[in-house]
Each structure stands twice: as C-alpha cells, then as structure tokens.
C-alpha cells in the first residue's frame, strides 16, 4: 500500500501539518501579547526613569522591557508547544467534526495495530479535513495585536515628549514627599555650584585635597539635584562627606608647620612676596633663584617684605642670613625657605577651602533637618586655617558632649574671626586679618524639652569694649548687597521654615543698618548678637 493510500500515515501527515499551523498561530498570538506587555511596561518604566526614580536611561529601560516581553513570549511558545492530540481536539472543535479526528489520533497513539484504528483514520480523512487545514488554525489579528500600535505610541510619547523633571515627579510622588525631595534637590544645586567653584580654585591653586573632596562633593550634590537620593540618603551622604572634609582639613593643617596665620593670610602673604620679587608665581621665583638671576632690587624688595614672610614662618634673621648667602652665591638656603613657605601657603589654603566646604555641607544638612549638623558645625567651627583650632575644637567637643547646661569649655572664642560665621561663608572669607577684634563664642542653653534634655546652640557676640575703634568694613556692605536678591528669593520659598526666614530677615536687616548707620559705641550690628543658629 502506498503512503497516500494508508489512512494512518496520511492522518499522521495531516496532524503534523496542523500542529505546525497551530504552533505558528499560537506563537504569533503569544508574541503579540508579549510585545504589548513589553511596550506598556516599557512605557511605564521609561516614565519612571525620566522622573528619576530608576536611575537608568529611559530608552534603555524601555528597550529592555520590550525585549524581555517578546523574548519571554517566544520562549514560552517554544517550550510549551501543543501536543498532537491537543491539535486534533482543537481541529475537531473548530470544524465540528464530532471528535472523529482526535479519536482516530488517540487510537493511533494508543492502539496503532487495532483494526478499528485504520477505520477511524479513514473516517477522519473522509471529513475532507485536508482541504480545510488553512481554516483550522489561521493566524488571526487578535485584540493584543490590534493594540500594538497603541502600546508603541504610548512608548514613543513617553520617550519623545518633553516631561519636566519636577512635573513628572509631581505626578508620581505623593504630596508629602514632593516638598522634601524639592528641598534635597535645591540643596544639591547649591552644593554642586559650590563644588564646581571649589574645583576651579583647587585646579588654579594646585590644592590637591580640595580638588579630591570637591569631586566627591560634586558627585553627591549632582545625585541630590537629580533626585536620586532620598532625604535620609542625602543626609547620610552629607554626613560622610563632612567627616571626610574635616579629616582632609586636619590632614592639611597637620602637614604644614604650626604657624598661626589668618585665613587667606598665607596666600596673601605669598602674593606679597611674589610681587616684591617680580615673579608670576612661586615656581617662577624658584627658577629665578636656581638660576641666581635675582636682581639687587628684587632682593631688596624681598628683604622689605619680611613682614609677609614672617607671617609665613620666616623670621627676619633667617631671611637676612639666607639673602646674604644668596648674594654670596649659595642659593639653597633661600630656595628651601621659599619652598617651605609656598607649601605652607598651599596647605593653609587647602585647609581653608575644605573648612568652607564643610560649612556649606553642614548648612545643607541643617536645611534638610539634620539635628547633628549644628553639633558638627560647632565642633569643627573656628578659624579654618588656624592649627590652634584643633585644640579649641577639642574643648568645644567636651562642652557639646555635656550639652546640658554645662559651662562652655575653656578657650572658646580664641581666634574666631568674622569669616568663621557660616552665614558669611557665601560671601567669602578673608577678613581674619582685617584687624577686627575676635568675636566671642559661647554655648548657651536655648531650649529644654522633655525631662531635662537641653539643646545648646552656639552664639557669637562681638566684644562690648573697644567698639569705638571698629570701623565699618566694605565686606560687610558687600554681603548685604550680594545677598539681597538671594534673600528675597529665599523669603518666597515655601520650603524654608518661617522661623528661619525671620532669622535671615533680621540678620540682613542688621547688616543693612550697619551699612547706613555711622558706627558708634553700642550701636550697629556689632552691638547685637549674631546668632549663628536660631
């Protein structure tokens, strides 16, 4: 009997063809489902990514979702292929063949040698199923297939349409967290700008530690600004960053000779020396020294700048001896002396910059509600460039550790200048050598809550004596002018607490009064308490 005449063989062939058609139909349907699911999931994920919730590129997220959806559908269709019996049953149901095909196939599988099997196969073939295969499992356009353009359109819209970050976040985030996130983002913006300036200065003045810490600070600030950090995460990062800043500052101070100078004094003194020597920078001066081509006039100018060099740790006697040796042809002494001074100046500048950055970080922490920011600021406050502050900080730490009405530690107020005030950090420092008397600092209990817990706040006051000798400083006026627009902006922000607004307003009003009022004893801002922390 030929193959075509054998109904069992013919039915086997027929079922195989039906199975292929069924697998094709099912694969297309599953692929449509998978693609649609992937497109919709991709649109949602891209939306989240654009809102900054995922921290991934929206296009990449969408592509992965679509690929996963389609791949899962294909994998499922390949691993869950329908059996031949299932195909036969479906064919019977689709063509209303009253289970003639499936019964024949069942008997072929279970009782291939039974006589009735051949008859069943012949009867199944008599249903003209061969001519109706195409209509059994057609590749139909299912509902998911029809919705594919909708899913693709949604994904494209999410990827293409410009959604402002804030807007998209406001859609996704609850109102309670929206305010918090905006505060973190704003602080991140401030810190990023500061870090950029710090990086520029570090590069310009070869401040290695400041450059490293500025990069780290910028990284944290950018993540805060982009909304990638929650408030708690941001505070944790800022605490860590502040600790690193402080460690780097201490390292900078420890690496230089222990000579007390005012903030910005070292660099200013060094500039004075360089100007006197007619050199562009310290390297040029050292090269001139190495060549021995400093003129007599320049050597004289160097000798006249002994005041600046003294503040850099070079005594007049040592300078005179070094200059004599130089004139005698020995350049090593003067060269070593100037190199040491330059290194010292750099360390001072590094420490100063790091302290300023630390202040900025602590201010941001305070803005974000970190209760430890105040403590850290006080603990690390003081003249940044002054190594003596290390000892003073220890004293402050002792006082803060008590914190409950304990008397302030000894040594408070030593060497504190106006430039130490955090509120003034935004306008810059550099007035530590302006001749102003030191502002005294005190730890005073300001509030008590619960059973005996006392919150302490550092307060700085100007000394009440010698006020007549004080003269208004241009920097003070500059602060008021430079920050006027910023203050107005802050006053309109909702995320700044009212009591802080009152404090800021009072502070700058006091500065404005100092700008207008002639300084007399007991009047002006110096006569008021400048409370560092409300």
């Amino acid at each position: 009997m030929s193959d075509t005449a054998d109904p069992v063989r013919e039915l086997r062939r027929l079922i195989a063809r039906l199975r292929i058609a069924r697998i094709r139909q099912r694969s297309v349907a599953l692929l449509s489902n998978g693609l649609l699911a992937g497109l919709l999931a991709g649109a949602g994920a891209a939306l989240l990514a654009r809102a900054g919730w995922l921290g991934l590129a929206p296009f990449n997220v969408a592509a992965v979702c679509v690929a996963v959806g389609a791949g899962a559908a294909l994998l499922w269709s390949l691993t869950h292929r329908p059996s031949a019996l299932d195909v036969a049953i479906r064919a019977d149901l689709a063509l209303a063949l009253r289970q003639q095909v499936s019964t024949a196939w069942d008997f072929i599988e279970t009782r291939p040698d039974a006589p009735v099997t051949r008859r069943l196969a012949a009867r199944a073939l008599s249903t003209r199923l061969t001519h109706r295969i195409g209509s059994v499992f057609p590749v139909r356009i299912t509902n998911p297939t029809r919705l594919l353009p909708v899913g693709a359109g949604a994904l494209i819209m999410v990827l293409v349409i410009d959604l402002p970050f804030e807007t998209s976040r406001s859609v996704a985030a609850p109102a309670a967290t929206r305010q918090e996130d905006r505060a973190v983002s704003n602080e991140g913006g401030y810190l990023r700008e500061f870090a950029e300036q710090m990086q520029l200065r570090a590069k310009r003045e070869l401040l290695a530690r400041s450059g490293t810490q500025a990069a780290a600070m910028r990284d944290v600030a950018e993540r805060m600004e982009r909304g990638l950090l929650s408030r708690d995460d941001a505070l944790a990062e800022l605490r860590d960053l502040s600790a690193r800043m402080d460690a780097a500052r201490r390292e900078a101070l420890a690496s230089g000779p222990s000579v007390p100078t005012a903030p910005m004094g070292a660099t200013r003194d060094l500039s004075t020396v360089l100007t006197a020597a007619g050199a562009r920078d310290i390297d040029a001066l050292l090269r001139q020294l190495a060549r021995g081509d400093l003129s007599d006039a320049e050597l004289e100018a160097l000798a006249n700048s002994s005041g600046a060099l003294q503040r850099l740790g070079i005594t007049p006697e040592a300078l005179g001896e070094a200059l004599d040796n130089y004139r005698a042809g020995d350049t090593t002494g003067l060269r070593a002396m100037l190199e040491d001074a330059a290194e010292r100046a750099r360390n001072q500048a590094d420490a100063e910059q790091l302290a300023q950055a630390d202040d900025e970080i602590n201010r941001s922490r305070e803005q974000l509600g970190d209760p430890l920011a105040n403590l850290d600021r006080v603990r690390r406050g003081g003249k940044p460039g002054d190594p003596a502050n290390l000892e003073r900080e220890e004293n402050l730490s002792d006082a803060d550790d008590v914190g409950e009405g304990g008397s302030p530690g000894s040594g408070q107020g030593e060497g504190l200048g106006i430039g130490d005030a955090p509120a003034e950090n935004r306008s810059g420092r550099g007035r530590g050598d302006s001749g102003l008397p030191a502002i005294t600092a005190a730890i005073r209990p300001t509030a008590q809550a619960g059973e005996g817990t006392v919150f302490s706040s550092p307060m700085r006051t100007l000394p009440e004596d010698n006020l007549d000798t004080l003269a208004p400083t241009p920097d003070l006026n500059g602060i008021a002018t430079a920050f006027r627009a910023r203050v107005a902006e802050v006053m309109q922000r909702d995320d700044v607490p009212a009591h802080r607004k009152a404090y800021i307003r009072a502070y700058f009003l006091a500065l404005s009064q100092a700008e207008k009022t002639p300084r007399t004893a007991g009047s002006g801002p110096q006569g008021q308490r400048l409370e560092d922390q409300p």
Partner: protein
Amino acid sequence: MNEPPATAERASDTVEAGPALERLKREICRHIIGHDQLVDELLAAVLAGGHVLLEGVPGLGKTLLARVLGATLGLPFARIQFTPDLMPADIIGTRIVMQDEAGQRQFEFQPGPLFTELLLADEVNRATPKTQSALLEAMEERQVTVGRDQHQLSRAFTVLATQNPIEMEGTYPLPEAQLDRFMLKLTADFPNAEALATIVDRETAAERAPVEQVFDFAQLDGLRKQTREIALARHVRDFAVGIMLATHPDHDTAPAEVRRYVRHGASPRGVLSMILTGKALALMDGRLNVSFDDIATVAAPALRHRVLLNFEGEAAGVNANTLVASIVEATPRGDS
C-alpha cells in the same frame, strides 16, 4: 435469523447500522407522536442494554411507547401495573404445589410476568418498597432468586418503568439503590398542538395502523455488541468522568451550586451509563466514535436521578437537570 458477522469483519456494519436504526425510529415515531427525542434516548438505552425510568403525567403514551418498542424489536412484552398491594411473588413468580401424572405432589416454580424481554413496570412508585426491591436483582443481574433456586432472565431483559411525578399520596419513592439501576431517566413532555392534532386523527380513526417489526432479537443483540465497539477516545472518556465527578459536592471540580444543593453525587454507574448511551447515540448517528456532544446529550438523562439533592436544594426547588447542564458547560473538553 440473521446473526451479525464477527467484529473484525464488520467494517461496514456500523455504517449500515445507522440506516437500520433510522428505520426503527421511523416506525416507532409513526405510532408515538411528538416524542422524537424521547424515542432517541429510549433507543439509546435499549441499544446500551439498560433499563429506563420514564416519568410523565398520565396519558402521554408511555405504555404505548413500551408496547410499540417491544413490537418493533420483536421482543416479548409484559406489563405490570404496580399497586400498593402488589407482592414480590406477584411479579417474580411463586412455587406452587403441582401434582404429576403419578399423583405425586411437588413444588414447581411458576414464573411471574418478570420473565419476559421487555417489561413495562407501570407506575412503579405505587408499589411498596418491598415489591420495588424485588426488581433489584432482576434489573442488575438479569436473574431472580426464589427460595434457593435462581432463575435466569432473558439477555434482552429490559425494564421500562413509569412513574407519575404529580401524585405523591399513596406512592413510595424509589430508593436510591433502585434508581441507580436505571440507566436513564427520561421525561415525557406534553406534546405540542400539532402533535396533539395528529394523535387525535390517528387514535380516532376507524383503523389503527399495525406496528411493523423491524428487528428481531438477534439483530438487536448484534447492534448491542456494535454499540460497545464504538471507539471512545481518552479525552472523551475523561470528559464523561469529569462530569460525573463534578456532581459530587466534595470534589474539587464541583461548581458552587453543586456544593450548596447536592447531598450525594452520581455513582460510577452514572459515568458508565453516559458512555454506553453515548456510544449508542454515535451508532445511531452512523459514527465510529463517541463525541463530546454525545456525552453532553445523555448527561442529564443519565445523571438526573443519581444526583440527590439536600434539603436546601429541595426547598429551593433546584432542578437536577439545571445542575447537570451547568456541570457539562463547565467541564473542559480535552486539554484545551
């Protein structure tokens, strides 16, 4: 008498069974007007070798149906009118004292009306349970035991019992064990106006057309064998089993209404009844295999008397037919 050929050689017989059965049905329907479906189901039960409980109000032609069926199949027919005072011996037979030619007296078994091939047990629920139970052995094993003697009944012995669903007074509902022995429970519905008109014309005519015998017993026996040879695929078998299991309230696949209203589900005889009568329907349709539709068609007649409602179901007037129909609808057909 034409004996059917051997199974392996009957390749074409099955195909020919269809027209023969169609001719039988036509002859029955010539006398039984307006009950085509009932006739189909009755023939299926006969081909499957089962007994039938026929329920319907008086005057719908139940007795006539049994009489015509017996005549067309050429089966000896007997009728027992069940009454409360009917005793088991009245239907089984009894031993009576007989005197032989030698003058000796001895007991001799006198067969009752049960010893026939087609028995019409009319209004079977009017007899006492004791008498009803006398049918149990005869229906299941096709034999009766009198004293210590067992008497075999005909292989074609078929009981066609009727009961009136309206009258409750003076009736004894059939016990579950006996109900389970009926392969199908059929209902005779009231004929429509057109059928009634035909009945009136035919019954009031001067002459009644004689019933023509279509088969003899041997042919019926051959058809019964062919019925059992109809192919049953696994997925169709599983469909029937699934329906039967779903009638049990404690089974996982039971629908909510079954869990709520059913006290006991169908016995395994239920699924056997479905498959055998399904095969008979396939044979009558000229097919070699049982289909899902065959099973679905006979599900209600095969299960409605086997599904026992609880009090809540009876109080709520739940219909076993509806329950079975919902089960059939919910049971998956094949793996799909």
